[in-house]
């Protein structure tokens, strides 16, 4: 615990302060989300904690079904009413869980906003693109029709829609998938949010325009100077765009830290597996990409202990017994991993009663 005091960090959350003087905008603590379904209780998120700091790009990665979307939808207050949510989610210190809907509405689309995965279904087909972008400004800033429309043109222009003044009256079906996602991004930054959430914003798009849309997203983020939570399957995208990475597995934290640290010294075998599966320019020819064998568990009955253990080459008898807590790496204090047999050594667990 020699480094424990040097960098302020929170062992319970598995996340370190990203810059000494930066403030957390969104803080998630021990978030759990269950869905009661006909087949049983789906434990979509099982206790994760993370922070997003001012101006940073936090990537959340993990295979399908690991609870990435559910975590951020919980933060936006957009989960279906039958979801059971516990823990804490706070925005600049204000608790969002249990906040009355009226107050949440005031934060949504102004302080926090979101870009969804599928631009083909996420826009209202019977409302013009301009009206949909202007609506945010009308609702939050009480702008009148004309200034709101001017704002929409300005935003469309910012996200790279040519001839924005004319296109503002178009309907979604007159836009291509890429243009629609640009419009979604314009909508999301309409009120200068301080945190922007993008849930796999390029997955539904043609590969040839995915990079463009990520550029637009970054440009938009810089224009409003917000933090970005980028959910993605693609660690290549993480390497290019994110400052920090949070890896989820089966509703829990697997590993988190600065992108460079995690890429250089992955401690969790799952992260190492994901990294081995990225195509890289510096990969020697002939070496094959190795996908992780097996598939993620059903969240109706996740395996006991470490959920990754059935697929893990390093698993021992200990792994199915206790779920490993996220612990700081010995070498890098802002880097945490939840593994009994890490690839790089972790600090020993802090006893419950010791001071932090």
């Amino acid at each position, binding site marked *: 615990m020699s480094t424990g005091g040097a960098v302020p960090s929170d062992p319970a959350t598995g996340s370190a302060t990203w810059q000494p003087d930066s403030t957390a905008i969104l803080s998630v603590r021990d978030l759990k989300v269950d869905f009661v379904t006909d087949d049983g209780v789906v434990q979509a998120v099982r206790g994760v904690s993370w922070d997003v700091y001012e101006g940073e790009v936090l990537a959340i990665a993990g295979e399908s079904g690991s609870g990435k979307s559910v975590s951020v939808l919980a933060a936006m207050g957009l989960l279906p009413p039958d979801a059971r949510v516990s823990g804490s989610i706070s925005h600049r210190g204000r608790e969002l869980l249990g906040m009355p809907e009226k107050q949440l*509405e005031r934060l949504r689309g102004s302080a926090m906003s979101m870009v969804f995965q599928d631009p083909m279904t996420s826009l209202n087909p019977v409302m013009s693109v301009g009206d*949909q972008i202007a609506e945010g400004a009308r609702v939050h800033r009480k702008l009148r029709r004309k200034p709101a429309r001017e704002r929409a043109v300005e935003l469309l222009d910012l996200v790279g829609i040519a001839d924005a003044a004319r296109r503002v009256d178009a309907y979604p079906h007159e836009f291509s998938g890429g243009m629609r996602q640009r419009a979604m991004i314009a909508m999301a930054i309409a009120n200068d949010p301080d945190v922007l959430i993008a849930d796999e914003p390029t997955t539904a798009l043609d590969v040839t325009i995915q990079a463009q849309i990520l550029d637009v997203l970054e440009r938009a983020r810089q224009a409003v100077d917000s933090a970005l939570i980028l959910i993605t399957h693609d660690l290549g995208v993480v390497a290019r765009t994110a400052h920090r990475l949070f890896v989820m597995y089966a509703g829990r934290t697997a590993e988190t830290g600065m992108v460079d640290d995690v890429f250089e010294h992955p401690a969790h075998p799952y992260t190492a597996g994901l990294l081995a599966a990225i195509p890289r320019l510096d990969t020697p020819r002939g070496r094959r990409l190795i996908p992780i064998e097996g598939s993620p568990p059903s969240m109706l009955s996740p395996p006991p202990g470490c959920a990754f253990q059935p697929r893990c080459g390093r698993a021992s008898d200990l792994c199915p017994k206790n779920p490993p807590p996220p612990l700081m790496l010995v070498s890098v204090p802002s880097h945490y991993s939840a593994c009994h047999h890490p690839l790089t050594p972790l600090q020993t667990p802090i006893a419950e009663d010791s001071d932090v």
Partner: protein
Amino acid sequence: MLAYATRKLLISIPVLFFATLVAFLLVATVDPIAEQRVFLLSQPGGAEQVARLEASLGLDKPLVERYGTWLGDLARGDMGSSTENGRAVTTLLGEAIPVTLRLVVAATVISVVFGVAVGVVSAVRKYSVFDNVSTFFAFLFFAMPVFWLGAVLKDLGIRFNDWWGRRIFFTIGEQSPRLDADFWGTWADRAGHIILPALTLILIQLAATSRFQRSAMLDVLESDYVRTARAKGVPRHRVVTRHALRNALLPVVSYTGLTFGTLIGGTVVTEVVFNWQGMGRLFLDSLLDGDVAVSQGWLLAVGVSVIAVNLLTDLVYGLLDPRVRHG
């Protein structure tokens, strides 16, 4: 929108021609003198009489020629006249249509407005008391045959009048016979007459429309674009009215157009139950009397109204959905 409307209007023209053909054939292919024929042919010299009868009705001519003649007369506003009372079909229709139109328009407007409202509230407050109660009544009325519901309401109306000691609900006819009243008096009298028959049609239409609106609304409320609207911080009432309702009206508009024919059927039955002298009565009498010209005129009038209503729903749909009007 103008191009879309023009296109829809042009498509209606061949449909209209087709309707005239159907109206003509449905009636013309039935032998109007079937009974006389059997009787006359059993008599000596009957064959000649049959031939004379056929010639007087124009039945000796080929079908195509008869259709041509009928269409030509129609174009001049001559739909023939009743074989029963000799009155012009146009006159008979002119008397019956306004009576029925009153009923149909009142029932449609009220059932659509309330059906949409009930469906939306049911969907927004799914499984609430309101939703459950409206579901119960929707299935109850939906399962009821029109004539039966009409008869029940008529009976209830009579009991209510007896209990109240004054006639509030009229149960016979569309207005009091030999009524001598001013403009307002006439309409008040008509209102008293229309309540029960209109209610019969409204309850049944309302049941279907509200269920349809409810399921359309539930689908839309689950949609991604409604989630987007909520993610923008749009207040709930505005999400429902501005985003969800407009999309959820689309299937209901189509539905209302498609079931207009069924409504006409229900109207015929209701008019008979409440002794209205409208289109229902006219049709039934013409069938019973084998009154060819009246039946043909009636079918054509109803066909035209169905085409007009479908045109109207197409236009409303186009106003609501930019994908359709640009397509």
